[in-house]
């Protein structure tokens, strides 16, 4: 039976026509596959996606480098010494006090993330800076790019100049107000004391005058002295 089954199926065969037609179909399929344009193939899209990804990664890392990398260093010189690290976008990435006063100011004002001009202004506006530094601010810029260094130095100088002007204006106004206040206070206080004292002197004088018949030349001296004092207070 096993032989019969084998023989029964052995006579079932694909005819030549079927084989030829199958070959033609497969060869046509093979030709159409090889003729497919490159951009229609999945490999094209994979390569394109890979290239785009690389570009994105490169652009991202460049941007990160630009944000994180120090492009310039600004030193605020004078009694108060502060160092500011600035990136390519002219933003302060870190600030450090280079002496005790500088450290104290940096602990008061956070300038990280500010544009360097705003940072300089913020520092200069602090009372501690003005107290220590007076009207003379000095800033020095160091940068890899000479042109950028010149620009930044000019901006910093302008900020210093502006600070000096404002400081002087503010303090002259303050001085005027103080002087005026002092004068008013002084004159008001002087009159009061003078009246009080003159009243006291007059009573003393009357008492002394009452005793004048018994006194010697000393009383004249005293009168003269009092008279001199009164005259002095009157001025």
């Amino acid at each position, binding site marked *: *039976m*096993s032989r*019969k*089954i*084998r*023989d*029964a*199926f*052995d*006579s*079932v*065969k*694909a*005819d030549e026509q*079927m*084989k030829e*037609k*199958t*070959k033609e*179909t*497969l*060869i046509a*399929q*093979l030709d159409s596959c090889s003729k497919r344009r490159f951009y229609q193939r999945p490999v094209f899209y994979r390569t394109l996606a890979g290239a785009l990804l690389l570009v994105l990664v490169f652009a991202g890392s460049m941007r990160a480098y630009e944000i994180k990398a120090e492009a310039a260093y600004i030193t605020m010189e004078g009694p108060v010494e502060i160092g500011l690290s600035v990136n390519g976008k002219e933003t302060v990435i870190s600030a450090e006090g280079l002496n005790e006063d500088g450290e104290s100011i940096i602990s008061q004002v956070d300038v990280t993330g500010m544009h360097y001009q705003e940072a300089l202004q913020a520092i200069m506006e602090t009372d501690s800076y003005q107290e220590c530094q007076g009207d003379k601010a000095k800033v020095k810029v160091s940068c890899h790019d000479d042109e950028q260094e010149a620009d930044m130095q000019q901006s910093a100088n302008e900020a210093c100049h502006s600070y000096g002007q404002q400081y002087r204006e503010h303090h002259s106004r303050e001085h005027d107000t103080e002087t005026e206040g002092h004068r008013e206070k002084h004159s008001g206080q002087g009159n009061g004391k003078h009246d009080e004292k003159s009243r006291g002197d007059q009573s003393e004088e009357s008492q002394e005058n009452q005793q004048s018949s018994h006194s010697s030349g000393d009383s004249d001296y005293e009168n003269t002295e009092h008279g001199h004092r009164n005259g002095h207070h009157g001025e």
Partner: protein
Amino acid sequence: MMTKWDINVIVEEYADTITRICYSYGKNYDDTQDIMQNVFLKLMRANPEFDSKEHEKAWIIRVTINECKDFLKNIFRRHTSLEEAQEIPIEEKEDLSYIREAVLKLPDKYKSVIYLFYYEGYTAVEIAGILHKKENTVYTWMNRARQMLKDMVGGDVE
């Protein structure tokens, strides 16, 4: 990637095997041609790496059986009616059509086992590997198929 030469070789080598499996599943000439093209197209596209010729043949048989089963689902796609369908031509000296008809009458799962065991000469273990079935299942199907063939054609089916 296959070449034209590869296509010629592979069609000459496996066309008869595919036709026999299709025949055992009761396929007509046109269906057999469609199934054959599908099997070879899958081979071209998948381009799998085979350990040996036997591995390659087993892959072709497995895919052909699956195609035959799937073709039943797409029977409504037929362009030709069953009356118009052309039978696969068979030339034989001795009339063994009664054997073939008996095998065709078996359920699909049994006819695969009978064909693979008696014609292709695979062992039960190998058939289990090709059909992705347990060895014991293959033995059970083989015994039942033998019994059914014995009932239909008589004689010893060993």
